């Protein structure tokens, strides 16, 4: 009966995928899987040829998509067939659809490994029918508080999906992730050495985080990325290891390289955040048994999907758009840090908008108070422009609290593209940085194409 139900689910879902591909090619990443799960709740665990020891999940607040894509590229280079949800469909339906796409009509898997990016909130649900043998946790940080509330809620969800036999791949320098090793027999730690972009925070209002074990403050010796770096708990023994099993070191941003285990690897990105994705993928690939040279070759060819920097032009000026995740202070901080590296004169365009992802829509900008603007202010910003329909003044006020004089700030309480472009035209500085939601960027891009014939929107993965 179970088998019949599974096959019925598989075939109906395949039919659905076929229909979607006719109407909207490439869009069937989730719905077919949802249909399959409706018919067979345990669908993901019912495929033939499923090797439970070769199921790898990658989860966490930030970095899971890039890490998944990197591991997929390495497996491909090594000639190891794998089912990977590269399109970012990381809920249970997306996992089901991916497995389906890598199976025969009779439901036999055509891959050796299953590698899935999994939404951290839904990890327990997905793991119920398809428990991972290996689980990589990139980090557990503040994110989408309207549904996630606080990091500990996500911590508990992830912990509930772990058994003592799960092999964990853990970020050595992120305290929440690192502390999960207490729950299992075997963990593999990966980390990043101090580098030219590592930093310390010393301001009076600087805060760190509570220890996930004892609740006392965590002290970071230095940060490689905001809230990630060599650390120790001031209360208990929790601390990062100075020598994790896989350690990115000799990081050279000028040469775009780093080393691990005596092998030099390419790193095309400027943002140190990517180092953690790279070394996590390397750690898993090495534990699979893939040669270092093969990994290096794969990384040399790797092109990330959906980079976080895109470029627009208006009136002879360049607008560099840096994407951030909404209500996610770490990605806002990373964007600010990236801009701060450019010491040349610049205009800073900030479009924090009201949050409309979930109901009720609301006007949260408080995550900006989790971020530090000091480096940005010190990086020669000529003028600040804050825009949005509702919260432009709140965003501007955050700048005031960081020490920016009001005379240096223009507030545009609108999302109107023409108004924004007209404001930019007032300044001679050709170097503009934009942080806003993706939909607002797309709207601005469309406006420029329509009104200025601007088509040189250059996706880049350099951030």
């Amino acid at each position, binding site marked *: 009966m179970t088998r019949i139900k599974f096959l019925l689910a598989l075939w109906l879902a395949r039919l659905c995928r076929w229909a979607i591909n006719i109407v909207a090619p490439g869009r069937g990443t989730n719905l077919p899987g949802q249909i399959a799960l409706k018919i067979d709740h345990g669908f993901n665990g019912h495929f033939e040829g499923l090797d439970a020891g070769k199921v790898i999940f990658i989860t966490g607040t930030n970095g899971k998509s890039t890490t998944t894509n990197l591991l997929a590229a390495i497996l491909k280079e090594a000639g190891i067939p794998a089912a990977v949800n590269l399109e970012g469909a990381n809920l249970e339906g997306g996992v089901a659809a991916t497995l389906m796409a890598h199976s025969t009509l009779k439901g036999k898997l055509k891959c050796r490994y299953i590698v899935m990016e999994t939404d951290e909130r839904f990890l327990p649900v997905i793991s119920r029918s398809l428990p991972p043998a290996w689980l990589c946790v990139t980090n557990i940080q*503040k994110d989408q*508080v*309207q*549904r*996630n*509330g*606080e*990091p*500990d*809620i996500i911590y508990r969800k992830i912990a509930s999906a772990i058994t003592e036999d799960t092999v964990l791949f853990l970020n050595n320098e992120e305290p929440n992730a690192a502390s999960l090793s207490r729950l299992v027999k075997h963990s593999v730690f990966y980390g990043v050495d101090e580098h030219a972009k590592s930093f310390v925070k010393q301001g*009076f*209002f600087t*805060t*760190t*985080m*509570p220890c996930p074990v*004892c*609740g*006392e*403050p*965590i002290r970071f010796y230095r940060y490689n990325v905001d809230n990630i770096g060599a650390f120790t708990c*001031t*209360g208990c023994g929790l601390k990062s290891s100075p020598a994790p099993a896989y350690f990115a070191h000799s990081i050279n941003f000028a040469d775009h390289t780093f080393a691990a285990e005596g092998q030099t690897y390419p790193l095309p990105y400027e943002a140190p955040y990517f180092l953690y994705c790279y070394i996590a993928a390397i750690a898993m690939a090495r534990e699979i048994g893939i040669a270092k040279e093969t990994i290096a070759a794969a990384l040399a060819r790797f092109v990330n999907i959906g980079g976080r920097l895109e470029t627009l032009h208006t009136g002879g000026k360049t607008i560099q758009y840096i994407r951030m995740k909404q209500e996610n*202070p770490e990605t806002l901080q990373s964007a600010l840090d990236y801009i701060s590296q450019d010491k040349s004169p610049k205009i800073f365009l900030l479009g924090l908008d*009201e949050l409309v992802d*979930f109901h*009720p*829509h*609301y*006007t*949260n900008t*408080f*995550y*900006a*108070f*989790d971020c530090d603007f000091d480096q940005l202010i010190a990086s020669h910003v000529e003028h600040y422009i804050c825009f949005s*329909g*509702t*919260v*432009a*003044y*709140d965003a*501007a*006020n955050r700048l*005031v*609290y960081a020490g920016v004089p*009001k005379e240096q700030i223009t*507030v545009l*309480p609108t999302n109107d593209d023409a108004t924004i472009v007209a404001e930019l035209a007032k300044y001679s500085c050709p170097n503009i940085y934009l942080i806003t939601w993706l939909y607002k960027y797309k709207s601005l891009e469309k406006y420029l194409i329509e009104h200025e014939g601007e088509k040189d929107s250059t996706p880049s993965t350099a951030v």
Partner: protein
Amino acid sequence: MADKITVLWLYPDILNLHGDRGNLMALERIGKLMELPVEVRRVDKLTDPLPLDEADLLVLTSGEVKNMPHVIDALRQEQAALDEYVARGGYILAIGTAGAVLAKETERLDGTSFAGLSLLPMRCQERAKVYGDDIWFSLCDDPQLKLMGNQIQVIDTELLEGAQPLGKLIYGYGNDGADDEGCQAGRIIFTNTLGPLLVKNPRYTERLLTALAADHGLAPGRQLSAEDTDYEDHSYQLIEQFIRKKMA
């Protein structure tokens, strides 16, 4: 008596959520605008001594619920001094989940519970699902003063017999989805309001600092002007429009 207002920022690394450090920045900044001497002092570790005899205001900001028992235990270590502080009229402001510290008890989702300091007659309960929204309310002791912000509801709060709310909701969820927001007993205040509260509501911050200054026989050198708070006032108007659309 010290000739300055001393604010103890309790456990900033532990109660580190929702940008609430902005509240301490606001006390410092608005104090400066009012020409009042305000000193914010950090108490970092749970085992650090609390200089309560020098304090005028204790601020506990939002943190993970699981850490509230640690904070409560730390404050209990100073129970006698804390009792004395409350008896002499010291202020306490607890924001968001830190309300659990002042409550009688908090029940967690796993069925366990922990006792709070019972400084406010209220009981908390962890929610199965997080709720986030805007919040807008008028103060019970000054209905003309309306405060605005956001809330991320991880625990609901039930006011027990004799409890007085801090405010009455115009919009939002407040303590438990009914009419009340927060709780106040004299100078002990709990609010669900984030934003940060004291950044987005400078008139309330001004009121609080004026009261704190009066205890020291200090008067503000100046009041906040419209120019001082133009960003906050414009923001209030825009968000009021946004909220009214949701209410319609």
